[in-house]
């Protein structure tokens, strides 16, 4: 068979869609959204006429484990809803990251309450269905990362929650909200692990851009915990940090090499908070605005 066989390709010209993500150029800005898919999800969940909610989940809500036996019908419906929401979250909706991943932990045995809460997320999406991620092409702000963790608020689990994101051109390009695998003894430790996870992601982006020929200066990472910044910047083993797994200390190397630079920001001004817990309405809206998620003015 000839190795240089030609393929039948279709030229899509200037793309307006990729992986079901709509791409719109407006002046110097680029908008990404999944409005059409979102509409389909809402319709599929039977929520077309539902009232909208102002946050993805009620403030302070934590999903308790279901102790009842598995209900197969409920489970498959729950998994369908959560699966669709996960896809939206991964594509263009960092604002529902915490809510979706928090609920998805119960995918093996969900309760009716879990399903109702998944539909609550749908109701939130109804009110924000035209939001898109906006990146400002004229921006001079480089890559910036932000981390936060939540330690001990969740009564249903003793694991801490980690959240971090990476921002470029005023919009989020990467976001993560997940429960840590290791138990932390203090909030400093929790923040240290969050910083460390974030650094790994930053290192990956650095090497990716490096391969494309970009030589980056130290990438700033913001944290609202002085203790963890101190630990990462000073490689002395304190008695209280002896037990921390060795792989978390990778961050010290990144700091020493100048790949990342750590900054302190006020906890009340840390937008990453939104990736670690269910916030009340005002706070949520304030932080969401800083993610680059925007309500398009007068369009669509």
């Amino acid at each position, binding site marked *: 068979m000839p190795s240089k066989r030609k393929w039948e390709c*279709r030229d899509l010209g200037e793309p307006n869609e*990729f992986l079901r993500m709509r791409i719109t150029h407006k002046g110097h800005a680029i908008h990404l959204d999944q409005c059409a898919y979102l509409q389909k999800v809402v319709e599929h969940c039977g929520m077309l006429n539902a009232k909208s909610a102002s946050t993805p989940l009620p403030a302070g809500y934590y999903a308790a484990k279901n102790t009842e036996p598995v209900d197969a019908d409920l489970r498959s419906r729950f998994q369908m809803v959560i699966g669709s929401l996960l896809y939206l979250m991964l594509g263009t909706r960092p604002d529902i990251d915490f809510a979706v991943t928090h609920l998805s932990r119960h995918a093996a045995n969900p309760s009716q309450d879990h399903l109702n809460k998944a539909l609550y997320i749908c109701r939130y999406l109804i009110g924000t269905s035209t939001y898109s991620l906006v990146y400002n092409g004229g921006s001079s702000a480089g890559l910036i990362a932000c981390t936060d963790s939540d330690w001990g608020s969740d009564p249903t689990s003793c694991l801490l929650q980690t959240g971090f994101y990476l921002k470029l*051109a005023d919009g989020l390009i990467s976001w993560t909200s997940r429960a840590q695998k290791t138990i932390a003894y203090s909030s400093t430790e929790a923040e240290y692990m969050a910083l460390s996870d974030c650094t790994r992601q930053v290192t990956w982006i650095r*090497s990716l851009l490096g*391969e494309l020929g970009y030589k980056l200066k130290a990438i700033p990472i913001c944290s609202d915990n002085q203790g963890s910044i101190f630990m990462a910047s000073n490689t002395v083993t304190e008695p209280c940090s002896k037990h921390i797994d060795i792989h978390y200390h990778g961050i010290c190397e990144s700091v020493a090499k100048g790949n990342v630079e750590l900054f302190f920001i006020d906890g009340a001004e840390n937008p990453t908070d939104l990736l670690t817990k269910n916030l009340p309405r005002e706070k949520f809206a304030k932080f969401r605005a800083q993610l680059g998620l925007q309500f398009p003015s007068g369009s669509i």
Partner: protein
Amino acid sequence: MKSDGRKKARLVAKGFSQVEGLDFDQVFSPVVHFETVRLMLVLATLENWYITGLDVQSTYLYGKLDEEIYMEQPEGFAVPGQERKVLRLWCALYGLKQASLAWWRTLDESLKELGFECLKSEAGIFFYKKKGTNIVIGIIYVDDALFCSPNKAVVDAIKAQMGVQRPWRT
């Protein structure tokens, strides 16, 4: 059924009857991360690059197989008089467990011939860099691709080399 009423049929292999170690070995194939797609789109916007999309038709059929696989003749389409013979597959079919990997390998090989390199940190990104011309970045998700470059002419030349036999529908 397609949206315009045309009907579509496709020969599909019964992948479920394949035996591991015999008919297939590795089945995982890399795809691009969502975050990389966003990063590249933002980069292209910041740098004011030209972006274009491409989509490969019936992708999996281009994948070359490493394994020796035989298939029964499809029901109702057996060659008259030779009904007892089986078919040897040279290229992948939809339904085969290794179809996606076979396609990815073929793609990787072909793009290398064109001068692209697959990034070490992201298997879904292909980078074209030659002295004297502009760079091109290819973002590839199975059969969907985006190409970004500061220079439209370079992308167009590459697209022409990738070869499109039928007239492009836009």
